[in-house]
Each structure stands twice: as structure tokens, then as C-alpha cells.
């Protein structure tokens, strides 16, 4: 390719535990819309953070060439000065500041004596809003805008910085269809003005509609770059995203599946922060004794929201639907009640929601089942110690003693502590949200073995995971979710990454 605005070559970025990027190459032509896709954890966001200087030069190896010149960004301001602007998935507007103030935050329009020139600020902001097609008064506070409009403000902010290359990370993940449509139109318009766009997206139909080329990443490597001006099918992209062999990374298990334990019907949940947004939409699923069931979905599909709302309504508002446990309807309204009904939920974010990091292993294990260790409100210390010791051995938690603070453990061992905690509550329905996130390969195998053991004990296990091979490797059945709805159910024999990915990307427009 001759007229490349951006060339990234041999980019390798290592985190303490994992190689996030390995020899990645990316070439973007001037004035095109270039899509990047790949599974969660394929390295898309990391690559963009390298490009925008979030990971400064020296933190990675490889070369970046922008507009023909080599670049060594030391920070995000550095890359912005060259005209590379990134808009993150989580929007970064300050809610109480006005649209205009947000646009010029850190880049204020100054007048005499270095004071802010409000007339100029608001007038120029109005021009930018006009360019992105947002009909709002620039003095409106950002929090009064919906997500779609906030997205447009972010783009206006990027335009104010004389952007040459605009990077959007999952820009439509939180948008409804008409907002998405408007945004894609805007991107086409910017392209015609000569602004190059890089867009990270899971929505394959959007990629097909808007992208001129697509680069596929998988496991931190560049797989291929497709020219989208020909007719490229969604299946073609999917096979690039998932095409890896499933070798022996999972322990064997002979499933012994019994009767139904948990049934969820017509479960609908609304977002507590975005008014009126439906996060889970009429979901239904069934778990049986001794069964490991997977829940696949891309980011924002509503899997965690479904799990947490069932687990004592710990997420969401306006929850409707029914939950049956062993055939009888239950209505756990608090986590305490959910635990009493034998439910357990191990969170995807261990450090924030799962563990008391300053407390020791022993007390983390007993935290949810403490009543079982107490008589008349007094805890039996010795038994607690015994229980913790038992799980330390059973789960192979690697720590000098059960008195070691949880914060000092590795990710895999922390996860074993969380799983021990829920095993000790005697739950017979365990929901494990991303149980192997941030865990190295060896420990993953152990976690899979523990999950198998849970099922062998007759418990029902629901595994939420973004890694399709993992779901296919350990689950007896897999549900797929997209945009809050259960879009498919696949048995182990029929589960292929392509098939799951097909359901996972099945947003309304592509429904066959």
C-alpha cells in the first residue's frame, strides 16, 4: 500500500502475566475507515493504547510511523498534538460541565489575561456541534445528554483538536439503532472530509456497512487485513476471529446430569444509570443438576447484568420475570436471601467485588457462610480455621498459610479463595462470571478442574465467559446472548466458535 497514513510494525507489548500483543502489524490508508475486530482479549484495546501513547514509547517494542514520520509518543497529549485522538468505550465527559466546557477541557479558549473567553468558547463549540449534527445548546450540562449525544460531543471534542486520525473504541456498544446509524453516517462524512477513522467494533453488520478495510486480531497477533470494498461475508470475518484449534487445555469429565435446579423465565432488567435502557430483555434459561452451562456474549450483551439481577437483585432496576428453584418460584430480593436459596455468584472483578484484600484467606473464605460457623452469633474460631485449611488443601491455594492476606495472592489463587467461599455456603447453583480472567494457563486448568468437581458434586454451574474455546471446552450446553436477549442455545456436540459467534453477533438487523 502506498498511501498509508499509519504504519505500526512489529508491535509487542507484555504485561507481567501475559503477552498482550505479539509482533502486530497494522497499516491504515489515508482517508479510509479501518475496522479492527477480534474476540475480547484479542489485543484490540491494547493496540490502540499503544498507538495513542497511553503506553508510552519504551513500554512496548516495535515501530510506529504516522504520516511518514516515526513516532515515539510519551503520553496521550503527545499523540493528540500529532492529530491522533482516541475516544474510549467508557465516555470521559465530566457530567456537571457544559458541552462547550467539555469540548475545550484542557484546551481552553483563552482571551485577555489568560482568562477564559466564554463567547468564543460557546460560539466555536456551536460550530463543532453543527459539524457533528448535534442540535443542542453548548451550555447544556453533559449529564443531560443521552449516551448517543455524548458520543457526538466526544467526536466534536476530537474535531476541536484538529484530528487527523480518529480512533473509536466500540462507539456503538451502548447506542440504540438510530443513534448508531447517525454515528456511522457521521463517520462517512468525516471520511469524505479527509479524516481517517479506526473503529473497534463487535458488530459485524456495522463493520460491513461502513469499513473500507478490516484488520483481524486474535490472541495478540495480526491474522489478516481484509479489503472490504469487495463482498466480504460476516462468516468470513468470524472464521478469522475464532480460527484456532481446541487442543487439550481442558480436563476430561463424564457429565452426570440430573433434573432441573434453576429456571429463569422472561427475565427483564433495566439499567439503573441510563434511564429506560433495557439491559436484559426477556431472557430465559434452565440449569440442571450436575450440569455446566455456558453463557456466551460479547461485551455489553447483558450477561453479568442477568446474573447479578438474579443474584438477589444486586444489579438493575425495574426487574421483572420469574425464577424457579427445584420447581418452586423464589423471589430473592437481597443477596442474603439469594444465598439462603442456594445461589452463589462469583464476580468477574475479584478485586473490586469479590475479596476483602486486606483480610486473610481464612476470613475471606468464611465471609459468606459465617453463620454456619457460629452459634448464637459467636464464631467458632477453631472450626473456621479448620474449614479454611481444608479448602486451602482441597483447592490447592498456594499461600504460606490461611492467615496470608488475600491481596498478596496471585490471580489464580485469589480466584480459588473466591470459589472456596461459595463452595462453603453449600450453594447448589453457582454462577461464575469470567472465572479465568487474568489467570495464567496453569491456574486455568486448575480452575476448570474445580468447576468440574462442583458439577460432579451435583451442583449446577453457569459459566459466563468471553473465551469461546473455554466455553466449548468445559460446558455441556452453551447459551448465547446479544443485546440483552438469549439468541441461541447450543449443545456441546454442536458447539463451534463460528456458530456461537453467529448468535453472539445477532443483533436485530441481522436476525435471520
Amino acid at each position: 500500500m502506498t498511501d498509508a497514513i499509519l504504519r505500526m510494525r512489529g508491535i509487542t507489548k507484555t504485561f507481567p502475566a501475559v503477552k498482550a500483543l505479539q509482533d502486530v502489524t497494522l497499516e491504515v490508508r489515508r482517508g479510509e475507515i479501518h475496522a479492527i475486530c477480534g474476540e475480547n482479549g484479542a489485543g484490540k484495546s491494547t493496540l490502540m493504547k499503544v498507538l495513542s501513547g497511553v503506553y508510552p514509547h519504551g513500554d512496548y517494542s516495535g515501530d510506529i510511523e504516522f504520516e511518514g514520520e516515526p513516532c515515539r509518543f510519551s503520553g496521550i497529549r503527545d499523540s493528540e498534538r500529532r492529530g491522533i485522538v482516541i475516544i474510549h468505550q467508557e465516555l470521559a465527559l465530566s457530567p456537571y460541565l457544559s458541552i462547550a466546557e467539555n469540548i475545550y477541557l484542557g484546551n481552553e479558549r483563552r482571551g485577555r489575561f489568560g482568562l477564559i473567553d466564554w463567547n468564543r468558547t460557546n460560539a466555536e463549540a456551536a460550530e463543532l456541534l453543527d459539524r457533528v449534527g448535534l442540535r443542542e445548546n453548548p451550555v447544556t450540562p453533559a449529564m443531560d445528554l443521552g449516551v448517543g449525544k455524548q458520543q457526538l460531543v466526544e467526536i466534536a471534542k476530537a474535531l476541536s483538536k484538529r484530528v487527523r486520525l480518529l480512533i473509536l473504541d466500540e462507539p456503538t456498544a451502548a447506542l440504540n439503532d438510530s443513534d448508531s446509524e447517525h454515528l456511522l453516517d457521521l463517520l462517512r462524512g468525516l471520511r469524505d472530509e479527509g479524516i481517517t477513522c479506526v473503529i473497534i467494533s463487535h458488530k459485524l453488520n456495522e463493520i460491513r456497512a461502513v469499513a473500507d478495510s478490516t484488520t483481524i486480531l486474535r490472541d495478540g497477533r495480526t491474522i489478516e487485513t481484509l479489503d472490504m470494498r469487495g463482498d466480504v461475508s460476516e462468516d468470513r470475518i468470524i472464521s478469522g476471529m475464532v480460527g484456532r484449534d481446541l487442543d487439550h487445555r481442558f480436563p476430561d469429565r463424564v457429565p452426570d446430569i440430573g433434573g432441573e435446579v434453576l429456571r429463569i423465565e422472561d427475565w427483564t432488567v433495566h439499567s439503573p444509570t441510563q434511564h429506560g435502557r433495557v439491559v436484559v430483555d426477556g431472557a430465559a434459561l434452565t440449569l440442571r443438576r450436575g450440569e455446566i452451562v455456558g453463557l456466551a456474549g460479547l461485551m455489553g450483551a447483558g450477561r453479568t447484568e442477568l446474573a447479578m439481577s438474579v443474584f438477589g437483585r444486586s444489579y438493575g432496576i425495574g426487574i421483572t420475570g420469574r425464577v424457579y428453584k427445584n420447581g418452586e418460584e423464589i423471589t430473592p430480593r437481597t443477596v442474603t436471601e439469594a444465598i439462603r436459596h442456594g445461589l452463589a455468584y462469583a464476580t468477574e472483578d475479584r478485586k473490586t467485588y469479590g475479596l476483602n484484600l486486606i483480610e486473610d484467606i481464612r476470613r475471606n473464605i468464611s465471609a459468606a457462610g459465617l453463620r454456619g460457623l457460629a452459634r448464637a452469633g459467636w464464631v467458632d474460631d477453631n472450626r473456621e480455621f479448620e474449614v479454611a485449611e481444608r479448602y486451602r488443601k482441597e483447592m490447592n491455594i498456594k499461600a504460606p498459610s490461611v492467615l496470608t492476606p488475600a491481596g498478596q495472592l496471585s490471580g489464580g489463587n485469589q480466584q480459588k479463595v473466591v470459589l472456596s467461599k461459595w463452595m462453603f455456603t453449600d450453594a447448589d447453583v453457582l454462577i461464575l462470571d469470567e472465572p479465568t480472567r487474568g489467570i495464567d494457563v496453569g491456574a486455568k486448568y486448575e480452575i476448570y478442574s474445580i468447576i468440574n468437581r462442583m458439577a460432579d458434586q451435583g451442583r449446577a454451574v453457569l459459566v459466563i465467559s468471553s473465551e469461546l474455546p473455554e466455553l466449548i471446552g468445559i460446558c455441556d450446553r452453551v447459551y448465547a446472548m446479544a443485546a440483552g436477549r438469549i439468541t441461541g442455545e447450543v449443545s456441546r456436540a454442536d458447539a463451534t466458535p463460528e456458530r456461537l459467534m453467529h448468535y453472539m453477533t445477532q443483533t436485530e438487523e441481522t436476525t435471520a
Partner: protein
Amino acid sequence: MSSVAPADRAVTPPPAERPKAGRALPVNLRQSGIYIAFGLIVALFAVLTDGQLLSPQNISNIIVQNSYILILSIGMILIIIGGHIDLSVGSVVAVTGAIAAVLMVDHNVPWPVAIVLTLLAGAAIGAWQGYWIAYFGIPAFIVTLAGMLVFRALTLTVLGNKGIGPFPDEVRTIANGFLSGYFGNIGLGPLGGADLFTLLVALALVGGYVGLGWRNRQGRIGYGQKVEPFAVFVLKNALAIVVVMFMAVQLARFKNMPWVLVLLGVLVLGSTLVMNRAVFGRHVYALGGNPLAARLSGIKVKSVSFWLFVNMGVLSAIAGIVFAGRLNQAGPTAGNMFELDAIAAAFIGGAAVQGGVGKVIGAITGGLIMGVINNGMSLLGAPSERVMLIKGLVLLAAVAFDIWAKRRAGTSR
């Protein structure tokens, strides 16, 4: 079941074991630094005052003069462990003292009934603040800042802007008086006579402490856990025995045991037990350590927060009665700045600003450190502004040390 993975597992070094060696010292220092500091401060003032600080009467004075702050600091450390703060305790001390005075003096309510009613008033005040904090979701800082004003205002209303007294003798005895010597005196040779009961109680306490410690140690050994070397165990216990017995002998030589010390002892033992062994205490630590994780572990975080404040209200009422009884009158300025002393005691005593960490005995030690500084400096004739200066710097140094120790531990991770 072929696998790369289990082989991997065997090779992976257990990451948790790495920091052990480098960490043992700072963690230990972080926990025991406060007691060492207390010892050094006592030694310093003992020398500066030519031993006056440790004279029988002065030891008794330190305890009686600081008893209400110590009572408050028990409730305060619980609240701080739970991740909250209470700025209103000084005003609650004042209003409960005023309620007790109005009941006993103006309305001639029998003193035991009046005390029960006052404690109930304290509980109601705690419930009021606990409701706004736990169930309504207003930060404790704001609710108790409002409470600080509201309850001071109520004090002035109840008292009509004047002091009410005197209190019945029984109430004054609780605050100021001494037990009667149940078993008489015994001679201690050159030290003169001493109250036998005080000595026996001290012996029982020391015996219990050592016995429990030994049982714990044996238990841990039974489970194959690491314990401190035997020599360290002996040294620690010997030190505790010497300190407690020294204080007991001095107290016994002066008069019998002060009533407030009995009260304080019961409260300290009771709350220590609750924090270490009761489900409620554990939930407080879990709440302060990570409220989000606590909620998702099925802990009723709202109810725990609520009862923490009820407890603080009751303890404030106890302190209010003791303080009013000691002055023999309930006054409009009673309890001014007590909240700051109680908060300082908790933080000097090793509580973490983010919550989740702390011990009752630490807060008591923190309170005693300030009490000894107060007392020692006034024995030396230092002006009050200098006492304030030193106390402020000690608080800053204590928290700075805590953060420094934490950071050191953190970097070795």
C-alpha cells in the same frame, strides 16, 4: 487428559511466598509500633517528671481523667473500622449528660432509672444518625456534622443555657469514686499497704491473658501454623505481666480500684470479644475492608452500619453520664472537642483511614498516649497551646507511619 497445564502448574513458583521474608518486619512493626511508642512516651515523661508520672495517685488520675475519652474511642474505632466517622460524639455526650441531669436533679427520677433512660436516649440518637447514614445513604461525615450542631443545640435547649447539678452520690461515685476494699489491705513491705482486691483482679486478668494466649498458640501449633518463637512469646507475656501488675500495685497503694476502670475494663473486654469472635464484629471488618464485596457476600451492610451508630450512641451516653458525674454538673459546653480526641485516639491506635483495620485495644492505647502527653506536660507546667501542638504532631506522625508502613508492604508485592 493430556495436558501441558499441570506440568506448567508445577513449574510456576507460588507467587504468594515471595514477599514473605521482606514483609515480616514492617507488618509486625505496623501492628506493634503503637505499643512501643506508648512505652517510649511513658518512659520519656517518667524521666522528665522524676517518676511523678508513675506515682500511685497520678496513675489513678490519668485513668479517671481520660475515662470518657477512652469509652468514646471504643465506639469510634468500631465506626472507623466499618469505614465511617462520627463527628457528633462530643455533642451527644453533652445532650445525654443534660438529659441525665434533668431527670435526676429536676425531676427526682431514681438514679438507676434515669441512667437506663439516658442510655436509651443515646441509643435513639444513634438510631437517628444510623438511619440517615445506612438506609438513606448520606455520608456519615455529613450526618454527624449536622448531629454535632443539632445535639449541641438540644443541649442548650434542655439545660436552658445553664449548668444543672449536683448529681446523686451514686452517680458521682461511678465517675470519680473507688470500690470499697472487699478483702482489706495487705502490706507490701517497703511499698506500704495496698488493696488486696485490686491485686487479685489484676492477677486474674494477667492469668487469663497468658492462659488464653497459650491456648491460642497451642491451637495454632496443632493446626501446623507458624507461631512466634517461644522466646518472643515469653517476652511479650512477661512484659504484659510487668506492666499490668505495676499499674495494679500503684493503684492499690493509692486507693482501691476506680469504678470507671471497672466499667472501662468491661467495655474493652466485651467489645474486643465482639470484634474478634462475634459474627457482627466480623461483618464490621468485612464492611470496612470492601463494602462491595461484603454486600455480594450476603452481609447486610446497611444493618451493620446502623447498629454501629446505635452502639456509638449508647457509649456516648455512658461517657456523658460519667463526664457529668465527674464535674457534678451537666453544662452547656460539656464534651466540646471530645469527638476529635476520640478520632485521634482511634487513628493513633492504628486504624486505617479507609476502614477495615483496627483494634479496640489499639484505640485505648492511642487514647492513653494522648492522656499521658496531656498529663505529663501539665506536670511539667507546659502551657496548653504546647500540649495541643504536640498532640497534633503525634497524630500526624502516627498516621504518616501507618501509610509509610503500608506503602513499604505494597511495593514488595
